[in-house]
């Protein structure tokens, strides 16, 4: 089954800048896809459309065969809560919360009762190799560890697809490699992963690579 379908999806930002031009793309269950392209080519824009963070100006976006364009803002929020996991370049962890609480916050909007959240969060942190950092706060963690907390937060809800927007952009090579290892492992376990990256080694290695230039697929 196709997890994501973009059909002639375009995005024009207010002010007239066309960041994405008639992109048609299908991603199937369990794929690992690298999105490449120079800065400003529309990679993040495309990721936002696929992840229902934004709507296309024209064209269709379908997740699991359902049209996303016609959904209300409320429904889109629920789609993000249940189906989608995001990992951002800047981690976006809450500073005063422990790793467990940062991950558990993800489950709030899924309606998981409080008593079950911490256990699920611990399990997710163990999956990304942070079983020994459960009660650390972000400032007590290295950059790579912070990004792994963010990945655990994306995973804990068992999403249909994981989107990572330059997850290693703020990390040194070694930590970055660690992050890619985790993404590979998730792919091998069957998770659909879409990752934006400038890392040529990874881009060469992944089964599927998508290149963008000036908002068009190459």
């Amino acid at each position, binding site marked *: 089954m196709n997890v994501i379908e973009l059909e002639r999806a375009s995005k024009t930002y207010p002010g007239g800048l066309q960041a994405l031009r008639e992109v048609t793309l299908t991603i199937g269950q369990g794929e690992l896809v690298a999105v490449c392209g120079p800065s400003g080519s529309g990679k993040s824009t495309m990721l936002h459309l696929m992840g229902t963070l934004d709507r296309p100006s024209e064209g269709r976006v379908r997740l699991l065969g359902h049209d996303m364009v016609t959904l209300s803002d409320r*429904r889109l929020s629920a789609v993000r809560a249940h189906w989608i996991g995001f990992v951002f370049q800047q981690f976006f962890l809450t500073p005063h*919360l422990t790793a467990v609480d940062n991950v558990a916050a993800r489950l709030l909007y899924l309606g998981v009762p*409080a008593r079950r959240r911490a256990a699920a969060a611990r399990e997710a942190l163990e999956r990304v190799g942070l079983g020994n950092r459960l009660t650390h706060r972000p400032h007590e963690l290295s950059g790579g560890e912070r990004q792994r907390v963010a990945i655990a937060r994306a995973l804990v809800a068992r999403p249909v697809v994981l989107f990572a927007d330059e997850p290693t952009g703020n990390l040194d090579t070694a930590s970055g490699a660690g992050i890619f290892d985790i993404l590979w492992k998730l792919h091998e376990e069957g998770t659909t992963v879409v990752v934006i990256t400038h890392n040529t080694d990874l881009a060469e290695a992944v089964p599927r690579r998508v290149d963008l230039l000036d908002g068009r697929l190459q």
Partner: protein
Amino acid sequence: MIPAPARLSAWDLVAVGLAGLRARRGRAVLSALGVAIGIASMVAVLGISAVSGAGLQEQLARVGTNVLTVGPGHSILGSEASLPLESVARVSHIPGVVGATAIGYVNGATARRTDLIDPAITNGVGVAAARLDLLATLKGTVRSGTFLNAATARYPAVVLGTYAADRFGIDRPGRQIFVAGRWMTVIGILDPLPLAPDLDAAALVGWPYAERELGFDGHPTTVYERSTDDRVTTIAKALAATANPEHPDQVQVSRPSDALTAELAARAAFNGLFLGLGAVALLVGGIGIANVMVISVLERRQEIGLRRSLGATRGQIRLQFVVEAVALSLCGGVTGTIVGLAASLLFAFAQGWPLALPAQVITLGVTAAVLVGVVSGLYPARRAAALTPTEALATR
């Protein structure tokens, strides 16, 4: 199936709101302070009014509202009139009257602490002859010592009103003071007399002694009568003519408990002013909270974006910020209510009034805080909810 948004439990909402406040503790305390001051002043005003009202009401209940006084009015010539000798006896025969008594000021007499003090400086303490049943009729009490009795009323013995005693610096019987040109022994000090406040500043001597030794003419200055409650209005109409049949127009009849009742009413009007001031303080506190919340929304755009990306709906974001504002305001409100109540209880304690917790005032304080929180949180919360996820996340 496309999923539906989950409902957040009330507990989760509160937890998220409080977490937002904990992260910015100093600022939270300062903005809650504004509300605390407003609520504290309003609660204190209402609380003091409630306990003092209760105090006055208790006093009224104790002394009763069925006492009437007959005092000298002014004669046509302007000189102060006095009442006929037999006025007390006549008043006591009116049907329904259960007690009638009188005092008579001794013309030109002064009470001084010692003979060394200039007679011109009397500290406002006049000398009055008192009937023995005065205290019982007015339901007065002695603070220390005893009131006049049949024996002491014939001797140079004096009972001081509470104000007179304070003026002389006397707090227990036994001392000699200089009254109307001779030394007399203080045998008692009275508590305040709510129905005859002018006697608080008087030195009371026995009626027979005053007539025999001080040149008192025996004419009452004021007659006090207590009746059954249902007869008060009827008696009030007949009282002037009974006390002074020849010159009923030179007599003034009044109901001293009216002054206490009026004080209760006056207090309510006075409260309005302070309540208004408290409301202004509360308004300023509310604006402070709105301000802090607006800044908070600006600073936390990334957090908002993140929560949207995790699946929070606009409504959930809005609710989060309203809950935060209400929590802030409620912190201030609860603190303010406690401070205000403490102030009013302290006041009641100092005045010797009954310590009553005014439940309505507590409810009002807390409700006002919640309202202020909701109103001041609404605008910032709407701004937070209006951000699209990508706008919010794009913030640097």
